[in-house]
């Protein structure tokens, strides 16, 4: 019982779903055409072995090719989608041979070595049907079609094989119920999966990244308890030519303090301007200068429309995989359309400033803050340099603390300045920015990262989430100066807070990163030599397999009924049979060769028949030497007959 029609339909469905319709059409046609053709190939097991070997070689080649080209696990999807094409030669050879079923040793080389013949056999057509359904399932775009398709294919192909004990209606009913239950369960599992996935994504996003908004930032001022940031690595920086790198990376700056209880900073001007780019890969922020230093930044995580962390003295971004790069007046750089795990090169030189010029808003203070700060210094315009020195001196006896106990909820800043005199960087940066304004210096609140952890093995700086930092900048003498009043011990305290197991995590993270780096730099062209070697070895194996196996003559016999494979069909004795038949000494259908030879009085052929019979009917077969000997004797006999022929006639 063969799965007629449905096999072709499933192949077509696979072609449509996998976008390989031009392969699928001839495949389906060839498969279905055999029901209209009577001719079959009488192939031996060796032939099937040969085709199976070819399939394996093609498969290995394909895996290598896809692996080198696809560069991600997605190559598995492609591989599965191409499986029907890979297996097609084997399937078609079975379809057009006299062999009904394939024994497992065709597929598994190890089984061919066994002494006992392999008994388990599969119907290649059903196997291929399943394979096509599987390959169709690997199309992720159009799921709605797959389930009904698979159900119909299974129903149709199993229908002829059902138990005849029950009526067909009952069988269809039971199978349909099974499919409905399966479909329902499948849908439930999928929905549960999606729900868990969404939750996990949310949770991971919250854990790994606190999003930095270029327009406003909410500080942790006024929160109670220990502030704890994770150790996860956000990005790595490789300085090019030397080890030095600016100690602070800017993500964004803010100029507008909120008046609410919890401190919030926002920007006054929200517009971004597009950065002109010289070519497709280079964006210029400042004119090139001889003192430019270069570095490469590898972002571990991607955020959509993410802010690009850069040093404030940036002059150029190169190779950023983004469609457009925008810059705000506050030094925030936005890249749109960025790919995951991007890496890019930057250039920076000391004279440059990303921040736009100061305005009125950089001096703005609301009454509440002014009143609060008046207890330190009256609002007035002091000389800028003096003001900075004053402020740094003012904070010199403050302590760094990640832990906040009792807090004046109404005004955490007051609490910080006058009673606790301890806090984390956001307190210091906020207070410093406001205090600078109180003293008449235009200032902004900046968030970014501190760059200080250098990894010798990688030759790179590692920036973790807990390296996130905030500080103030003051506009003095036409340029923005960093005023970081956070006590210098903050780095040491943050690092002391690190997870004990962090070195182990880092070890794996760094090595996977290094592998990723190495892998991204590989190109298939670089491996031509290796590929040739692998291909050469595979070809040699194939040649060796062919050379060591026996020579086979594929006989085209019009066998109406297909039988299991026939050993010894290639026996040279058939040449004698054909020769004698041509001579008019025809054998009857039901006449065994021995009786025939006796009838036509060719008893000299009986010894040859003995070897032939052993070849054909002894499951143990004959040795290669005996085959050669029989071949020779047969040729010898026929030659002798041909020589005699003319004389007799």
């Amino acid at each position, binding site marked *: 019982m063969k799965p007629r029609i449905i096999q072709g339909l499933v192949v077509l469905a696979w072609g449509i779903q996998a976008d390989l319709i031009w392969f699928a059409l001839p495949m389906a046609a060839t498969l279905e055409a055999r029901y209209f053709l009577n001719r079959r190939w009488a192939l031996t097991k060796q032939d099937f072995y040969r085709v199976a070997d070819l399939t394996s070689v093609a498969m290995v080649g394909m895996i290598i090719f896809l692996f080198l080209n696809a560069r991600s696990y997605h190559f598995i999807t492609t591989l599965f989608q191409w499986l029907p094409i890979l297996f097609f030669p084997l399937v078609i050879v079975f379809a057009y041979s006299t062999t009904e079923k394939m024994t497992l040793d065709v597929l598994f080389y190890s089984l061919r070595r066994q002494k006992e013949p392999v008994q388990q056999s599969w119907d290649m057509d059903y196997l291929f049907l399943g394979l096509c359904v599987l390959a169709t399932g690997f199309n992720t775009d159009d799921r709605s079609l797959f389930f009904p398709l698979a159900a119909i294919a299974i129903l149709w192909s199993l229908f002829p094989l059902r138990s005849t004990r029950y009526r067909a209606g009952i069988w269809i009913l039971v199978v349909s119920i099974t499919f409905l239950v399966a479909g329902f369960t499948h849908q439930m599992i999928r929905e549960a999966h999606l729900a868990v996935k969404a939750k996990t994504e949310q949770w991971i996003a919250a854990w790994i990244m606190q999003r930095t908004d270029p327009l406003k930032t909410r500080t942790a001022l006024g929160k109670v308890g220990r502030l704890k940031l994770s150790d996860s690595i956000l990005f790595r920086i490789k300085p090019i030519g030397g080890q030095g790198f600016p100690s602070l990376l800017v993500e964004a700056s803010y100029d507008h303090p909120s008046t609410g209880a919890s401190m919030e900073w926002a920007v006054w001007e929200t517009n971004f301007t597009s950065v002109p780019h010289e070519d497709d890969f280079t964006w210029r922020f400042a004119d090139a200068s001889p003192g430019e230093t270069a570095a490469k930044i590898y972002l571990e995580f991607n955020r959509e429309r993410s802010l690009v962390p850069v040093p404030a003295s940036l002059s150029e971004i190169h190779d950023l995989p983004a469609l457009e790069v925008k810059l705000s007046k506050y030094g925030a750089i936005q890249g749109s359309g960025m790919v995951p795990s991007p890496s890019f090169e930057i250039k920076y030189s000391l004279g440059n400033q990303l921040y736009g010029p100061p305005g009125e808003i950089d001096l703005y203070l609301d009454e509440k803050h002014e009143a609060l700060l008046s207890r330190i210094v009256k609002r007035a315009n002091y000389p800028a340099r003096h003001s900075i020195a004053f402020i740094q001196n003012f904070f010199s006896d403050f302590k760094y603390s990640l832990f906040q106990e009792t807090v004046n909820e109404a005004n955490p800043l007051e609490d910080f300045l006058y009673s606790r005199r301890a806090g984390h960087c956001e307190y210091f940066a906020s207070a410093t920015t406001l205090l600078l304004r109180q003293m008449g210096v235009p200032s902004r609140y900046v968030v970014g990262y501190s760059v200080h952890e250098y990894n010798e093995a990688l030759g790179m700086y590692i920036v973790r989430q807990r390296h996130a930092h905030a500080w103030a900048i003051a506009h003095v003498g036409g340029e923005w100066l960093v005023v970081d009043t956070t006590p210098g011990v903050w780095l040491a305290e943050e690092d002391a807070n690190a997870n004990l197991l962090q070195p182990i995590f880092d070890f794996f993270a760094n090595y996977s990163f290094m592998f990723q780096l190495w892998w991204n730099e590989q190109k298939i062209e670089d491996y031509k030599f290796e590929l040739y070697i692998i291909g050469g070895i595979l070809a040699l194996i194939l040649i060796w397999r062919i050379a060591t196996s026996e020579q086979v003559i594929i006989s085209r016999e019009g066998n109406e009924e297909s039988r299991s494979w026939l*050993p010894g069909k290639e026996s040279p004795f058939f040449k004698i*049979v054909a020769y004698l038949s041509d001579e008019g000494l025809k054998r009857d259908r*039901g006449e*065994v060769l021995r009786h025939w030879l006796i009838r036509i009085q060719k008893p000299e052929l009986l010894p040859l028949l003995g070897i032939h*019979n052993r070849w054909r*009917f002894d499951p143990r077969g004959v040795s290669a030497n005996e085959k050669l000997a029989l071949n020779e004797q047969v040729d010898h006999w026929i030659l002798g007959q041909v020589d005699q022929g003319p004389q007799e006639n």
Partner: protein
Amino acid sequence: MTSDQPDIYPSRECALLTQLKDNIETVIQCNNEGIKWLLTAFVAGGHVLLEDVPGTGKTTLAKSLAGSISAEFKRIQFTPDLLPSDILGVSVFDQHSQDFRFRPGPIFTQILLADEINRASPRTQSALLEAMAENQVSVEGDRIEMDEWFFVIATQNPVEFHGTYPLPEAQMDRFAMRFKLGYVSREQEVQILDSQRYEHPITRLKPCTNLEDLRSIRNAARNIRISDELKHYIVDLVGATRAYPGIQMGASPRAGIAMMKCSQALALIEGQEFVTPDIIQELAIPIIAHRLVLDPESQYSGTDSAECIMNIMQDIPVPA
């Protein structure tokens, strides 16, 4: 026949069988393959039905086989008034032990000659049935195992119809083979007269093998190789009888099993290590013919089952 035999026997078992055949031939002459086929069935462990007119040596053949292998031999003459207990045995009251004691009947032997089996009533015939099929007998609710060498040679006379009960199909199926011995040639018959001038040669018959050797012969037969293709051929032959015009009931799968086992045994006797198609063709008629039930039309038109099988063998392409 002797000129066909190879000088070097492929195996010891083959040599033993040839010896056995020669030994039997010192007693009985046979113009066809009767002795060979009898040995084939015996090696394959199947029972034989000899169908022939009286006086062709059926009993002598059975006796000489038993004598040649030093096996226990018994003979039952089937008559219309024979009862199952006459075959299986009966429990008699023992005065000494005050208990019933089972006295085994003639069926408890190694080689049993069931002479003129179609003369007994079906009830008695069927007493043989269980013993032949399952090598066991149920007497008074007890199960008694038969000897492992239990071998039935039944004879029947195909000429007479009066006062006979033709064997039921089920029982026919239990015989592995049925064949005729036939009349011997003129020269052979003269030779028979010569050899029996003073005494019957069976009195001089000496056993030439023992049961231990026979066991190894049976094992060797089981190890004769047979290819899948030939198994298919056997199944095709047997299967064709079920759809052949003129045949009411074809041969059972048991016929196929018998075909395989007997062709293995015959291959061993012929000195081959594997089965060839000519061996299968040789055994087709003795193994399949008696299992067929012909249509009344073909019966009366003179067709017999052997002819049907000849036609089938002509129709089905033989593996070459």
